[in-house]
């Protein structure tokens, strides 16, 4: 079996900031209530913003599942690690809450989960992948802004989207090689 390379390709021009992804994620992953606790989010990145020239734009995001993840490199206890198929996870048992990873992450994608006393973040719903299901945020999204799949499979939808469109990643200068890939507007 060939190795998977899980990724999410996003067309955020379709995003209406309905927050279905953020609520679905909290439900699926038992993320505690509270605005400082989140695995994913939607940011407003409006460019023209003076009345009456308004163009609102939204950008949903989450852990970038970097191929070169700084959080993993700095973790002193190896709690943060990368799976065979490239998903960055946190072993809650090993986490000592030193927060090095939070400092190292250029995307502010990690938070302190006080209930489990560990750092927590997006796992691409790894528990769902094992059952052949897609991440909750991808599944629930009304206009399907996110598409999930295997970049190593040339026939997958994500591979086709990347081939078909101009794409970009967030903060490429950090050299993190994100696997959240945004279709350019």
């Amino acid at each position, binding site marked *: 079996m060939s190795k998977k390379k899980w990724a999410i390709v996003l067309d955020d021009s379709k995003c209406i*900031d*309905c927050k*279905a992804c953020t609520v679905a994620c909290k*439900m699926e992953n038992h993320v505690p209530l509270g605005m400082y606790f989140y695995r994913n989010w939607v940011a407003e990145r409006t460019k023209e913003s003076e*009345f*009456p020239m308004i163009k609102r734009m*939204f950008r949903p995001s989450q852990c970038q599942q970097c191929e070169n993840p700084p959080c993993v490199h700095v973790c002193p206890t190896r709690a943060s690690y990368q799976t065979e198929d490239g998903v960055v996870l946190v072993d809650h048992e090993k986490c000592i809450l030193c927060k090095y990873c939070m400092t190292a992450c250029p995307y502010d994608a990690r938070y302190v989960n006080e209930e489990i006393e560990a750092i927590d973040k997006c796992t691409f719903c790894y528990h769902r992948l094992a059952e052949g299901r897609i991440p909750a945020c991808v*599944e*629930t999204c009304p206009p399907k802004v996110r598409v999930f799949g295997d970049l190593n499979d040339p026939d997958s939808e994500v591979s086709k989207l990347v081939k078909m469109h101009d794409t970009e990643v967030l903060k490429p200068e950090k050299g993190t090689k994100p696997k959240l890939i945004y279709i350019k507007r």
Partner: protein
Amino acid sequence: MSLLKTKVSRRKFLGLTSGALASTLVMSNFGVLKKVGASEEKGNSKYGRKFVPSTCAICVNKCGFIAEVDNGVIRKINPNPKFFKSRAMICARGNAGAKVPYDPDRLKKPLIRVGKRGEGKWKEVSWEEAYDYIVDNVVKLVRKYKNRSTIAFASTEGFQEEYFIDLANIIGTTNTVRHPTLCLASNIQGYSSVFGTFPDADIANAEFVIIAGSNRAEAIVTPDTIDMAKNHRKQTLIYIDPRATKTTALADKWYPIKPGTDLALVLAMIHVIIKENLYDKEFVEKYTYGFDKLAEHVKQYTPEWAEKETEIPASEIYWLAREFAKHAPRSIWYPGRRSSFYANDVYYRRACAILNAICGAWDRPGGLIPKSKIPLRKYEIEFPIFDWTRDRIDAGKVPFLGDVLPEEDKTDAGLPTDSCQYLSEKDGSWILFREAILKGVPYPVKGLFVYKQNPVESVPNRKKTLQMLEQMEFICTIDVAMSDTAWYSDVVLPESTYLERWDPVHSLNGVVPIAVMRQPVIEPLFDTKSMFEIMCNLAHKFMERKDFWEDTSEEDLEMFKETCLKRLTKNPVKDFAKYQVSKYPGAFEQLLKEGVFYLSDKPKYGKTLKDGFRFKTRTGKIELYNVKYEEKGLHPLPVYTRHTDPKPGQFRFVVGRHGQFTHASTQNNPWLLEAYGDKENAVWINAKVAAKMGIKAGDKVKVKSPVGEQIVKALPTEYIRPDVVFYVHGFGRLSKGLSNIYRVGASDAEIIVDYMESISGNAAMHETFVTIEKI
């Protein structure tokens, strides 16, 4: 009015509700009904993991979902991939619905008030006690006033609302009042006056879409919202709104139109399309009536004139008109909600429909499409005819109509001054209804049942609603939470949530109709019952009261016992649902297993364009010129009326939706409140105006209207016109049973003036001017 006439209208009224031609199903003992929902699940173990398809009820869309249940507890509500109407999605609210049954603010036992109204002192009682209390009070009131219509019924849509209406029929009142006149009654009226029906929009196949008076990104409607977003790269979307809502994110152009002038824009577009011969001549010739009169009428409405009214440049109006015509029939002026704009809203909606009609963008791919439905079987029930039933209080000539019309609309030719012209018999008109009750004209209404609706927060001018409740001698509210209306009630019955019960099959009518029902995802928590069970139990309790039936005949009563008591109330909802779809083999099993049933997943176009088809209008054609309106003394063609501008220091207050909130019903859900991003609402005020007034973000301001005032946080923003202010609906609540939002933020019901659109009876919610004062 003669008794006979009352009886006739009563029959007609009854005909609108659910009925029974009973299949001979098991005559269950009444007590068995208590566990209708759960009884079928007994075979399955409560333990383990299961996936149950059912239907969401957190808003009006009824999206299919598949609930993941772990050891009897809902873990997650996932979208149903087969549910194509919602394009297989579940929104934030649908997701947060998983927590609804476990909400600590849920009603858990029947309650009877022991303190003063609104004091919040309750006694927990058994269902038997609650039923006895209700029946005693209803019988007492009906006998005291010798009038069954003294009991009113207020409700909003839902899969069990028909059982609430059944209860109204059992009691024998004509006074039911539903939500449409707080929402889209004028919209339905306007489009229907042209096409004879209220259509859907084929957004999936449209090329050019104009939305005005609707905010589809935040007021999610399926499949429209999703199709607009999905088509973003290939469809031109024009958005017209005084606010830059989240819908502007999908829009190619946004016009912050001057409020109250939308009709001028549409008329000017029609003007251009006719003048430049851009309309569909063949279609107009074959299917429409009154084109010549329309052409003559719109000559006066030039884009140059409309520019002064709307503040949209004439060049843009020309562009809009030409583009609209160019893309037709794949063009849509979107028949959106938030229709309760202005007191002349029906004329505006008529013009929108006419624009689509003359371009031939009707019943063809990408245009407006008449809704299709999936026919279902139903019971025919014969409710008794009562001598003590009287006509609706808001029907016919209403002497005080002028009290609920804005100044400029009282005297205008073409607007009726004596009655609401096209009042729907089941829906009524909330504004007029309340006004009539407050004035006691033509008779006193002293009892009120409320189901799922929350008039205290939903109907403009909250003080008047509270006065209306105050003069009631008996109020019973049925809900899942302590709504503000429940808070002021005498008896509160806790309903099982949509995740705990069977609901009958409903056809979701649209471009592609789809049938859905509900099955319990979990067993009912707490001592709650469905509306069906409540209706059944009360029906039998009423039967025990001999003194309740003396104004009806023996035959009527027998017929009622046979049809209603033996058939409807003795067959569990599950069996009824099975009966509803019994003409489609395998449909019920499919609903159980897949959560959805449909005859086709492809739209059918052109059924109204076939030879010999008659539109439901007087002429049988698409009426650009409405013959019935002319007869009733209304304008047969849409006439523009200039609206009053706010005076210096005043702002027009507008209403609007937010993606996390369904009307006033989901603000108390902590997950949605968090997704909304704040603990309270805030008043949008144009940033430059706010700066001039010395108002900064977060400052507390007083928003004052002719009917009320509220203190609220300021939100200076570029996203709104300088002459308009807005805050989101559903905050500043009066019920302590809504612990997250009690007295938090500001209520819009408190400050909106209760004006009315006189043709449809729709509340006109954009006719309120307010002042803002920093405190």
